[in-house]
């Protein structure tokens, strides 16, 4: 039995999902016989951890602070082993722009893109380059905050007139914005666990909206098919590409890689989530289940590397 702190909540936009993930994880860890303490991450995080001296921290945080290396760095300083990816990989994946550059450098297909900071628009007249970008990417363009994990702030621009408002929206969440060519196709997610790609999940939007990002992980508004109904060659290709992406960004023992399969059957990587949702309807638990790995087993496997490290700083 080990003493495990489950870090959840926090002040990110994904607070609610994180609280649900955290509660699921706590239940599983208790069933596994661990001594579990849930911590809603706030100003007293360090004090709580000092007091608790856990053998390991299970990070069930999503989005800013929890998934971007911030909390990981603090745990490094405190010498508390933690689950998932290290500081560097967390930073690379949380930042969609860094991640896409890393994909490109590693020869991993990712939709064409350009990225700007708010400063570039304000100080360097980047707005004058918008037309060239639009020409290069073609419409529709997806406009995303660079480092914001939830669906909030992601907009479609189907014509040039939509772009400025979409930029204002995306820059509400981040000081940098990503303009990405939209790939029409099927929306796939491949979860990686201990160096193995799990069965592919396909998210099939049920809504009338051509693509409502906010509906994406909402059960009832999106149907999830796992294993996805793909030929074995496409499945293999998706799993291999996801593994390559996971390795290229040096992610830890688990992650979820989001991919698009376009009409020509080619695959492109959109992003990697280093701490994907762990709620009842989340994709990683579904994929693990399809591979015969129950939820408790999944949580045990995510925790194992942290416990193996021991209490020394890494």
């Amino acid at each position, binding site marked *: 039995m080990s003493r495990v702190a489950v870090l959840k909540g926090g002040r990110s936009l994904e607070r609610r999902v994180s609280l649900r993930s955290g509660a699921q994880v706590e239940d599983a860890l208790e069933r596994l016989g661990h001594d579990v303490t849930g911590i809603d991450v706030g100003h007293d995080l360090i004090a709580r951890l000092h007091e608790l001296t856990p053998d390991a921290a299970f990070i069930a945080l999503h989005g800013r602070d929890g998934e971007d290396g911030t909390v990981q760095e603090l745990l490094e300083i405190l010498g508390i082993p933690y689950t998932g990816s290290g500081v560097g990989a967390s930073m690379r994946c949380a930042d969609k722009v860094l991640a896409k550059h890393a994909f490109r450098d590693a020869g991993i297909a990712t939709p064409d893109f350009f990225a700007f900071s708010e400063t570039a628009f304000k100080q360097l007249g980047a*707005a004058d380059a918008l037309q060239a970008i639009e020409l290069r990417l073609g419409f529709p363009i997806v406009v995303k905050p660079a480092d914001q994990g939830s669906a909030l702030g992601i907009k479609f621009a189907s014509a040039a007139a939509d772009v400025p408002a979409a930029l*204002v929206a995306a820059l509400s969440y981040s000081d940098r914005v990503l303009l990405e060519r939209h790939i029409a196709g099927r929306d796939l997610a491949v979860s990686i666990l201990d160096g193995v790609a799990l069965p592919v999940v396909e998210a099939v939007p049920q809504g009338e909206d051509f693509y409502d990002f906010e509906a994406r992980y909402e059960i009832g508004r999106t149907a999830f098919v796992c294993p996805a109904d793909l030929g074995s060659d496409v499945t293999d290709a998706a799993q291999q590409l996801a593994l390559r992406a996971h390795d290229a960004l040096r992610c830890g023992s688990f992650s979820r890689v989001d991919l698009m399969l376009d009409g020509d059957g080619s695959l492109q990587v959109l992003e990697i989530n280093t701490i994907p949702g762990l709620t009842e309807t989340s994709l990683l638990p579904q994929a693990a289940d399809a591979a015969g790995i129950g939820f408790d087993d999944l949580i045990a496997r995510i925790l194992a590397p942290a416990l193996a490290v021991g209490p020394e700083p890494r």
Partner: protein
Amino acid sequence: MGGSGSLGTGPRGSRAGRSSAHELTRYAGLFAARTREMTSSAMRDLMAITQRPEVISLAGGNPDTTTFPPSSFAALMTSLAASSTARVLQYGPTEGMAEVTECIREVMAAEQTQVDPQDILVTTGGQQVLDLMCKTFIDPGDVIIAEAPTYPGAIPSFSAYQADVIQIGIDEDGMLIDELEATLDRLELEGRRPKFIYTVPTFQNPGGVTMSLARRRRLVEVAHERELLVLEDNPYALLRYEGDPLPTLLSLDGGEFVVYLGTFSKILSAGIRLGWAVAPRPVRDKMNTGKQGVDLCTSSLSQLFVATYFAERRWQDYVDELRELYRVRRDAMLEALEQHFPAEATWTRPQGGMFVWATLPDYIDTTDLLARALEERNVAFVPGRAAYVDGRGGSSMRLNFSGSSEDDIREGVRRIGEVVAEQVALYGTLTGQRPAETPAQRAPGVADEDLADVLHLPRRERRRREAQ
């Protein structure tokens, strides 16, 4: 269902056996079709982080209950215990206790509306009236007419019954009756008859506007001509800070086609969850039957608490006190808006109630704006889209002035103004121009989108002032 949600009965953590994603999604397969409409939204994710203590929240819809003296509360409860402990602890009649029905008639009399006690149904908050109306009238796909914007809390009630909500625009005189009639004509051609028209005619939530007497008369006429029910939701009318009271739709109608929704929430306490409906007898009886299945009866403790409180005959003094408190807060908010919101913004100037509705240029999405306001300025409001079922309202926001101190209101509005100014400047940079026309410069009431921009009163006033 929370994290420990399960079919098991043990305390949290004691549930035996393995839980898997597969098992958990199995519940989703059992959900009723209507739950498909009961989704949580990204906006709710956003609202979840407005609760932080450092946040100045103008997002709430709360009355200020700190003004009710604890000593009075204690005295009331003591007196209640001495006189009625057994009754307080007991079930009551579904339709409500006679004592509280009398209190309701007193409140209605203060609204210049006489009601027959037989027409009153005491409910668990006014919100229950919305549910019971739907339970009584709405089959899946039935039409409910509402205002645009409408009370955000009504939307989940309507969606739970799979109603098709059609929203009619409002301006400074309330619901646009011409648009209502055109919509009713269109629906008639389609062979669809709305089950009821939902309106908050006085100090509307979220719009802050009040339906004019002429439109009240016309709405009641329309209801009579077409034999349609109107649900008059009237929680705020006694919180009037200026101007003359207007008759309720119920009093204009004489109780034929208007169902009235009242509540003690804004004049005494929201926490006691005590509201009421006044409805034509057959409707009231059917709602009463519906209520039986929901909760058998409204809390006896709450009902007898109100009866005891009203017996002291000081309830109107407390309402006077609230009126004074909120009037000052409203003034603080309107002043702060003048001072801190950019020229491109418009907002309503409520004569009462709890809310101001502000509309920004249409390139600003207030859901995204809220994310920035929370992250960088620790201030919150309700994004306008919450008040629409059809995606409109994206550039509007609801601001509450009853639940915060004057200082917090001024500071909160100042902070929101800063974020808005940033967005306006950024848009100007991105488009290489000063942002274009403002709503006030457009011809009134031409395109559908314009209906989202409710009012331009303050701008006119400002111009008038400048002209002087």
